């Protein structure tokens, strides 16, 4: 029996002697530090690094704002960073007024040459940066990462940033001033560093660039930011287990529980009259779907999604939180089962955060199904031919698996990701075969250990085994490079008007285009099995926006994927994302549809009755029904039938001689009913005429 606790306790790690050189360095550092008399190295570095012009500007600000002198101490300064690709760091005072800007890269330097941000409020400064970036062609469909490093409330309006960012994906991240200083000391870009950290926390650790990480974070959490590492374990229950609301567990079926009616689960009262969010939820195949009511009170800063196994009234901060959602309009989240214990009752609640107040809402109890979360590895096999090495591994379809890292090492006989890096990241779990010809990475004639590391959404990485192969030393000449069928990685987001999709460009030979696939029922949609909503043949197109339509219904949740179609019929489907189309809201600018009738006039002569009416040009009109009734003074179609259906809207006159239908000498009420394409009918007036009796 393997007892990890016991084994860990038995491990004795000896004290290691400290080398004399190391101690000498430390003691020298302590001595030289005091000689420099600077407050800290960052301050020193910052001061000396400032260009003379910036010093003059800072001095002018001090002169112009004598009352602010006290504010301009290091301890009360905060920092913002903007990364588009121009990278800019902005130092602000405690009023969020810009004190100093610093370019973090060459593009940042170029951009700062064109604008002056001194004395602006941070919101205006960032707007100016984004506008300048757009004009200079930096801001396309990449990313905008805005970072805030400081204490207190930040002054950023992300709505505004998103609006100005256009197609670029935006994200707002928060760090501490100390982090900023540490990052700068280490020569790192603070904003991007924060992004990488956030990516790592969410398990995005595969060396993607900033845009991809932003997209992946958006994909993973949509508007959700800053999830906890894990659910905070329950505290000692403040109530006896027997008092667990039995009623609720009995009356609430596991699959579709209603908000627990138990008194203890009522929301707390807000002394500031701030609104609480009412939660409901259900157990789905993929996790616990929680929905809650949107709060409209002012001062809103976010929702904390809270869960507890023991506290029937969980709330933030007492019970930790699962997700922190800063978008007021985001009122749903799917908690994957791997975040929760299987076959366990959980109480869920939403704590709405306001400036200075936290308001816990009602709680519901849901039971997770019995799910065995297994972390499967992908055993690898392979061989080398004269031209290439061929790797095969077991295909994984374990829930939570994100993809395969193909790992190679010349020296480590048990290579794995991330310890040994990787040579390819494959997100299509159906792929289980790769061929590699000699290259700069896999050098001809060299022997490598190969392995497959399966990466799971929760960050778990499983490497099963490794194999040793020698890359062939003769480079292929005549035979063509093995065809690679590349898939794409999809990300998406939604807003009030619709959903936005973006995916990585595929430029593999033979790729014909992308099929955008959506299904409300199939969690792994693909083309052709699920049809498609759009066929895009321009491979450079990597984003699309969709508003609610007949294909994508308002309020409906869809599983969405991109299938890359190849000329030889091969299809490779991307990862799947789940997005909900926003509920349809009537557009204030939409003109209501008009249904126009027509006015009939007429006369009778010796042989005929003559009917005339005005031409109808209203969009959607498809024809006229000529109606006659000897009894009804306001006849109309279909109530009174029709003596003729005229589909030419240009026809505005008709003569009728006595017939079996219109009997000679009889008096009739005549009318014209205009028909529309949506089956609407419009009848204006009727006239009375007597059929001649020749």
């Amino acid at each position, binding site marked *: 029996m*393997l007892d*990890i606790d016991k084994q860990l306790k038995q*491990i004795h*790690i000896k004290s290691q002697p400290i080398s004399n050189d190391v101690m000498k360095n430390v003691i020298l*550092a302590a001595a030289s530090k005091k000689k420099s008399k600077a407050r800290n190295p960052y301050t020193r570095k910052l001061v000396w690094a400032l260009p003379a012009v910036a010093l003059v500007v800072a001095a002018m600000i001090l002169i112009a704002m004598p009352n602010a002198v006290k504010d301009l101490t290091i301890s009360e300064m905060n920092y913002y960073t903007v990364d588009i690709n121009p990278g800019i760091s902005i130092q602000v005072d405690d009023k969020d007024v810009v004190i100093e800007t610093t370019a973090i890269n060459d593009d940042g330097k170029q951009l700062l040459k064109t604008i002056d941000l001194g004395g602006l409020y941070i919101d205006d400064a960032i707007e100016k940066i984004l506008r300048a970036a757009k004009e200079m062609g930096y801001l396309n469909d990449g990313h905008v990462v805005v970072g805030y490093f400081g204490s207190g409330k930040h002054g950023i309006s992300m709505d505004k940033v998103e609006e100005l960012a256009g197609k670029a994906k935006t994200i707002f991240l928060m760090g501490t001033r100390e982090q900023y200083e540490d990052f700068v000391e280490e020569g790192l870009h603070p904003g991007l560093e924060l992004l990488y950290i956030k990516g*790592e926390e969410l398990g995005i650790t595969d060396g993607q660039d900033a845009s991809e990480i932003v997209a992946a974070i958006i994909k993973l959490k949509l508007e959700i930011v800053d999830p906890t590492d894990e659910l*905070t374990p329950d505290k000692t229950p403040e109530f006896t287990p027997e008092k667990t609301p039995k009623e609720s567990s009995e009356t609430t079926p596991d699959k579709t529980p209603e908000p627990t009616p138990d008194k203890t689960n009522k929301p707390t009262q807000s002394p500031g009259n701030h609104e609480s969010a009412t939660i409901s939820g259900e157990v789905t195949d993929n996790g616990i779907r929680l929905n809650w009511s949107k709060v409209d009170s002012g001062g809103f800063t976010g929702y904390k999604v809270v869960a507890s196994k023991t506290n029937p009234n969980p709330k933030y901060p007492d019970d930790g939180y699962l997700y922190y959602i800063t978008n007021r309009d985001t009122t749903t989240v799917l908690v994957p089962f791997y975040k929760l214990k299987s076959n366990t009752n959980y109480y869920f609640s939403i704590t709405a955060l306001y400036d200075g107040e936290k308001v816990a809402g009602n709680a519901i109890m849901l039971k997770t199904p019995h799910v065995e979360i297994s972390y499967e590895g992908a055993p690898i096999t392979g061989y080398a031919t004269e031209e290439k090495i061929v790797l095969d591994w077991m295909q994984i379809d374990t829930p939570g698996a994100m993809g395969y890292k193909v790992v190679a090492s010349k020296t480590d006989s048990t290579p794995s990701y991330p310890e040994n*890096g990787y*040579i390819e990241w494959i997100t299509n779990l159906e792929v289980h075969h790769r061929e590699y010809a000699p290259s700069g990475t896999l050098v001809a004639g060299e022997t490598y250990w190969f392995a497959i590391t399966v990466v799971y959404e929760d960050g778990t990485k499983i490497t099963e085994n490794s194999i040793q192969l020698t890359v062939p030393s003769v480079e292929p000449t005549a035979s063509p490079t093995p065809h690679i069928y590349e898939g794409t990685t999809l990300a998406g987001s939604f807003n009030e008007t619709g959903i936005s999709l973006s995916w990585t460009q595929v430029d593999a030979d033979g790729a014909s285009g992308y099929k955008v696939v959506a299904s409300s029922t199939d969690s792994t949609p693909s083309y052709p099995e699920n049809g498609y909503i759009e066929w895009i043949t321009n491979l450079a197109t990597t984003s699309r926006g969709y508003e609610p339509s007949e294909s994508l219904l308002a309020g409906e949740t869809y599983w969405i994927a991109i299938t890359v179609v190849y000329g030889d019929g091969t299809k490779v489907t991307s990862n799947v994302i789940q997005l909900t189309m926003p509920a349809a809201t009537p557009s204030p600018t939409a003109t209501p549809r008009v249904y126009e009738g027509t006015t009939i006039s007429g006369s009778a002569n010796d042989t005929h009755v003559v009917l005339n009416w005005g031409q109808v040009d209203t969009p959607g009109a498809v024809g006229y029904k000529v109606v006659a009734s000897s009894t009804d003074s306001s006849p109309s179609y279909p109530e009174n039938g029709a003596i003729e259906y005229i589909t030419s809207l240009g026809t505005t006159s008709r003569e009728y001689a006595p017939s079996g239908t219109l009997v000679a000498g009889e008096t009739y009420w005549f009318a014209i009913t205009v028909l529309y394409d949506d089956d609407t009918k419009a009848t204006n007036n009727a006239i009375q005429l007597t059929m001649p009796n020749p």
Partner: protein
Amino acid sequence: MTEQKRLLIRYTEGDVQAMNELIEAYKQDLYNLCFRLTFSLSDADDLFQQTWLKVINRPEKFNGNSFKNWLYTVCVNTFRDGYRKRMRLMKIGGVEFKNNQAKDIAMALVSDNVTTEDIAQGNFIKTTLVAHVNRLASKYKTVIVLYYYQDMSYDEISKILNIPIGTVKSRMNTAKSKLHKQLLPIVKTEEVIWEEEKYVRH
């Protein structure tokens, strides 16, 4: 006011000897932590120096409570940031990243009272276990090292990492669960081999 706070104040006033006293008092504890976090002598040297540099540069950041806890916090944060940096370097470096710390790990485990059989069987499991601890994500590794090798309580770890005790426990459980999953197949195989070897010897 604690003795350590007094020493730091003296240092900020220009008394270099005061910092030397602190360094002398905590150097071995800190170096042990550095080594147990990195399992590499060269990385431990770097981490040790970086930690002291931060203390030297920002003595005013010490709040006057437990100096050891603060020192450990600085060390753990420095390790965590460095770990991220190394991860990124690995991504950039791709195939050629070397994780050649086996020798350091083995050396760390060699204790004077270890028997031959321990080395033959027990130490294999322990070495493998330590190797897997070393591969854990930094947040899991840190709690294991602080708890098992630095003999710190959950409460102290909670203060050092600035996270709730519940989260410390949760990370500990997750870490052990991960280690168990990773070790089980290896241990099973090794037990079989061990049993077979015993049989042959008899």
